[in-house]
């Protein structure tokens, strides 16, 4: 509503502001702001109402006045009398407890209104009203004024209003159940639909009659039954539940890992308007999926959709949708090399520049999606018939639903359905009208040109040929249009692709130009991909392969030896800013110091005394982490204990046949008789001897305490290190059973002269109070100079007399420190492991929280390491690995 502003209204503003100012400056400001929000937006009566309310409240003091002056306008702006009434009623209830209860709760209420969540706002008023009408103690009220806003602000916006409603129900029965309810949401009930959550809460509240504690355990999902029921009710599938699985699929299908992120991480780059329909996006590096999926009533259907989306996007990686290359385009169509570059001052990727060369770039981008998805469909059909069938049925359904909803014949949508999805039938004919011949023509052309084996540039070439006729049909809209419809909102997003690959692209351009100046050709897109996959540190061998391939593709003569020669002269490190920074001066240090050499791969030699390791004990912290962890995982602990019981030596080992012993060996007796008979010398080994058998194993757990271990585990509110600690604690519990000797140490560094080796448990330390407190004290620190830490660990382990000495390295990625990057760090670590091996110490790397990477093989040696993509599997897998390594 927009109403003219009268002079008296301005006068009212002035008089009210002055009245407030005389009490407190901030009150005055709030009143002025309030009036400014309302002026011209509300009726004169409402404005008078506001002024009257301020008159009243001034009597009760500036504090409340200021709050009301700020909050009331948000309510008035909604022009909803019922809302105003509810607001006043709640306010009265709150004031009955004291002014201190107003600010937090109603502050959130106003925020919700301003964010357009009026339903949630109303629900919140209801909740506050119910809660503060209860006879709460002063302390409890204070607590609630903080607890409720904090909890409600944390609810999922899409479900906020009914979750608030359920919180109210819970509080009405017993306000002490509020905390368990909120805990339960965090633990999983947040995924329940309104009806399901109501059912769940009802069950919990039934228990409250007999036991408040029981109801609390139910609500917080601490009770086993509650978890089971919640699972039963849940139809929505959260991304966290499938992410590990999907990541593994991508790894298998592509041979490298592609991280999966929450769609919300795309942030402002995504157009909000389209968000509900877009279920997947990809930037050539990461894949984005919705945080949860609840399209269907059956969870398994939702899981299928997740899987299908990942499978479809995997094709973009597999068949090179992100690899558009200007030079290849030029090669293919002989088009001028720099079309579009002039227009835009050459910003953006090659692909964007290509698309921006058209009068309507959004139309060109749309056509690109159409043809590229067609190319992918054909490639998938040739290579993955099963996937093609599955996709087709999903697409058929999506198209049927869309056509039922909206049968407008936007040309891009029609092209998508016919060309990209390959669907031509009566339905489409009917809505296509006179576009039909055009659709058939381009479908045929696409199938002819985009044969399996063709590259993304072939799709781009079709964009160029199809553009004029399509533009002629569509005309030139004044304003940019909404993106056209596709199933699940799938489309290629040149903008995202550029954002994710701009840096490697720039590096690739530099290297390409430099190579060109030496007469070597290479495709920029190939380089870019190589930089991406190698995390910015490609090797000479990679480059050589790319150059050779490019020369073959371009029919240019090139000898491998010439390329090698040219490359040898290039200073790749300098080119890629990989040169190491100068070593940092050492800080003042306590603890014992040890110097170790470091392998310089470039030099091909050790740098003597290059690193300085400081060894000290990790200080204890008083944190009951150990106890808590064991308690929380009673089930797992029991299972592990059982598994390790089996590893435990049976106590006695039989030696047979033996020269002396406690009893005869019957097999040997038989042989004795036969030998006698045969007239040959019988053996005198006729006995069985029992000796106490010992597993002669010593294991040292070397834990990476670098900064990155503070990263949150995707989809869980825990850090990588926290999960690692859990695994270590459970591991201790298990080793207690087997009786193997073990030690734990952490490491972290900051430059070559500052490597910390932190002893957490020595071989001789009992697993006592202090040790447990040191385990709890592990915390993310600095960088990862792995080689030096391994060398020191080797030294400690070598001192231990044991038949088998095992060094388990637990980390979350590659070594990395000042002047210790990429291949150099890997080569040094590998050396350190070999040195350990030479001292009969076996190493095993366990890497968590990243996908497999071929370079891990280089780091630890093939078959000498394990990747655990979902770090939450670590506890389980650690035992499996350890058990396997030391089975007798």
């Amino acid at each position, binding site marked *: 509503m927009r109403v003219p502003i009268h002079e008296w209204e301005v006068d009212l503003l002035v008089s009210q502001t002055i009245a407030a100012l005389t009490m407190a400056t901030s009150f005055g400001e709030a009143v002025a702001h309030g009036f400014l929000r309302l002026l011209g937006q509300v009726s004169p009566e409402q404005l008078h109402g506001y002024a009257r309310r301020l008159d009243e409240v001034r009597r009760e003091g500036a504090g409340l006045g200021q709050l009301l002056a700020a909050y009331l306008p948000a309510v008035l702006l909604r022009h909803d009398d019922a809302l105003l009434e509810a607001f006043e009623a709640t306010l009265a209830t709150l004031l009955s407890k004291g002014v201190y209860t107003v600010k937090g709760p109603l502050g959130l209420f106003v925020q919700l209104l301003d964010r357009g969540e009026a339903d949630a706002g109303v629900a919140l008023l209801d909740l506050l009203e119910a809660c503060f009408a209860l006879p709460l103690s002063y302390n409890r009220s204070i607590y609630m004024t903080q607890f409720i806003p904090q909890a409600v602000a944390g609810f999922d916006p899409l479900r906020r209003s009914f979750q608030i409603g359920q919180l109210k129900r819970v509080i009405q029965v017993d306000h002490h159940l509020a905390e368990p309810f909120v805990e339960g949401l965090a633990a999983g009930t947040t995924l329940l639909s309104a009806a399901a959550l109501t059912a769940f809460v009802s069950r919990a509240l039934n228990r409250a009659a007999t036991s408040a504690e029981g109801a609390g355990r139910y609500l917080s999902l601490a009770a086993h039954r509650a978890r089971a029921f919640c699972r039963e009710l849940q139809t929505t599938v959260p991304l966290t539940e499938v992410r*590990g*699985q999907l990541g*593994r*699929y991508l*790894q*298998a*299908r*592509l*041979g490298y890992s592609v991280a999966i992120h929450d769609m919300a991480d795309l942030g402002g780059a995504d157009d909000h308007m389209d968000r509900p329909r877009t279920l997947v996006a990809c930037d050539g590096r990461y894949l984005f999926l919705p945080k949860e999926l609840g399209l269907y009533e059956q969870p398994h259907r939702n899981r299928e959709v997740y*899987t299908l989306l990942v*499978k479809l996007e995997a094709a973009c990686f597999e068949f090179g949708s992100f690899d558009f290359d200007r030079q290849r385009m030029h090669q293919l169509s002989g088009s001028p090399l720099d079309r579009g570059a002039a227009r835009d001052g050459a910003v953006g990727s090659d692909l964007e520049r290509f698309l921006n060369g058209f009068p309507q770039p959004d139309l060109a981008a749309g056509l690109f999606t159409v043809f590229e998805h067609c190319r992918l469909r054909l490639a998938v059909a040739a*290579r*993955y*018939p*099963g*996937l093609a069938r*599955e996709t087709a049925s999903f697409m058929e359904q999506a198209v049927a639903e869309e056509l039922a909803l909206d049968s407008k014949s936007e040309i891009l949508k029609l092209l998508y359905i016919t060309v990209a999805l390959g669907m031509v039938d009566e339905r489409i004919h009917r809505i296509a009208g006179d576009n039909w011949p055009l659709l058939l023509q381009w479908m045929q052309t696409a199938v002819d040109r985009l044969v399996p084996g063709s590259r993304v540039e072939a799709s781009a070439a079709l964009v160029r040929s199809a553009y004029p006729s399509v533009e002629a049909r569509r005309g030139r809209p004044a304003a940019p249009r909404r993106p056209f419809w596709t199933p699940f909102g799938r489309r290629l997003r040149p903008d995202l692709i550029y954002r994710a690959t701009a840096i490697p692209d720039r590096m690739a351009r530099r290297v390409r130009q430099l190579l060109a100046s030496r007469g070597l050709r290479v495709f920029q897109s190939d380089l870019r991909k190589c930089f991406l996959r190698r995390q910015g540190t490609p090797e000479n061998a990679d480059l050589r392969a790319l150059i050779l391939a490019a020369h073959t593709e371009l029919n240019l003569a090139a000898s491998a030896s010439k390329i090698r020669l040219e490359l040898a002269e290039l200073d790749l490190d300098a080119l890629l800013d990989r040169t190491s920074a100068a070593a940092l001066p050492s800080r003042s240090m306590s603890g014992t110091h040890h110097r170790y050499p470091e392998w310089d791969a470039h030099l091909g030699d050790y740098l003597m005394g290059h690193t300085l390791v400081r060894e000290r004990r990790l200080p204890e912290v008083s944190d009951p982490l150990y106890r808590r962890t064991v308690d929380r995982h009673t089930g797992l602990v029991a299972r592990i204990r059982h598994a390790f019981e089996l590893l435990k030596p049976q106590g006695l080992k039989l030696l047979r046949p033996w020269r002396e012993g406690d009893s005869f060996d019957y097999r040997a007796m038989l*042989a004795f008789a*036969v*030998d006698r*008979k*045969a*007239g*040959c*010398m019988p053996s005198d080994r006729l006995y069985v001897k029992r000796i106490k058998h010992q597993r002669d*194993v010593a294991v040292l757990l070397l834990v990476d305490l670098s900064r990155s271990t503070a990263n949150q585990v995707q989809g869980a509110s825990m850090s990588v290190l926290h999960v690692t600690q859990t695994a270590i604690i459970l591991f201790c519990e298990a080793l207690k059973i087997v009786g193997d000797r073990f030690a734990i140490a952490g490491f972290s560094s900051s430059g070559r002269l500052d490597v910390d080796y932190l002893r957490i448990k020595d071989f001789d330390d009992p697993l006592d109070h202090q040790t447990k407190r040191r385990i709890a004290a592990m915390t993310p620190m600095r960088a990862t100079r792995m080689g030096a830490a391994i060398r020191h660990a080797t030294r400690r382990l070598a001192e231990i007399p044991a*038949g*088998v000495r*095992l060094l388990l390295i637990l980390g979350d990625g590659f070594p990395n420190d000042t002047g210790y990057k990429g291949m150099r760090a890997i080569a040094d670590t590998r050396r350190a492991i070999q040195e350990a091996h030479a001292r009969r110490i*076996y190493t095993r790397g366990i890497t968590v929280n990243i996908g*497999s990477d071929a370079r*891990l093989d280089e780091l630890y040696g*093939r*078959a*000498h*390491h*394990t*990747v655990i*993509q979902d770090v939450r599997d670590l506890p389980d*897998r650690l035992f499996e690995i350890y058990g*396997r*390594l*030391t*089975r*007798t």
Partner: protein
Amino acid sequence: MASADADAPVSHRITDEPYYLSIGNEVSLFEAAARSALPVMLKGPTGCGKTRFVEYMAWRLGRPLITVACHEDLFASDLIGRYLLKNDETLWLDGPLTQAVRMGAICYLDEVVEARKDTTVVIHPLTDNRRTLFIDKRREVIPATAGFQLVISYNPGYQSLLKDLKQSTRQRFVALNFDYPAAHQEAEIVARESGVEPNTAQALVRLGGQIRNIREHGLTEGASTRLLIYAGQMMTQGISPADACRVAICLPLSDDERLQETLSELVDDLF
């Protein structure tokens, strides 16, 4: 006292050329080792063609082949031989190793680390320049007949640390490295061995490659060529591709259910 080894030479001779697709220069390397009577160690993951290679080389060199699958209850005496009682008479029976030493055969000890430690005592004098076998029961020293060659196989990475080969044993062998063949070669092998169409063989090999991509995700080893062939053979028997892959590839590889799900996804894509 009679000897029971009379029938051996014939049955151990390989008369038909085994199908073996050479992957690199392993054939000429083995031939050179054979000419110098050097013992050979074949390293590589399971089911990648080690046994087939030995069979092929035995045929090519025209030598008999005796294969022993080693296991944890294999004593030295199982390799050498023992006395048996027969109607109040004792009878000496040569073990496979003794047979091979006598007849100048290739003796292939498959998965040698699995055998008991005392077998190494027997192997050592055979694999250095003594080239003799000592039978303590008979107090007999048999010099190896020309043509005798000891070949062992060894699968690195799969072993328990407590069972690794001792250096003094390792260092008596020439080692040949085996790995899964390159995709086009593997497809040729799968097609040939199982009789499936080239297209299907390619799909199977692609599946194998994809599974090997997640080797460290809880699989002890990737899918072997052998398993791919099994799947192909099931298909030629009329089993549907999905079922064939499930029983011949997925289920044998792992017991982890979540991993099985990923494997089924991969199979479903391809067929």
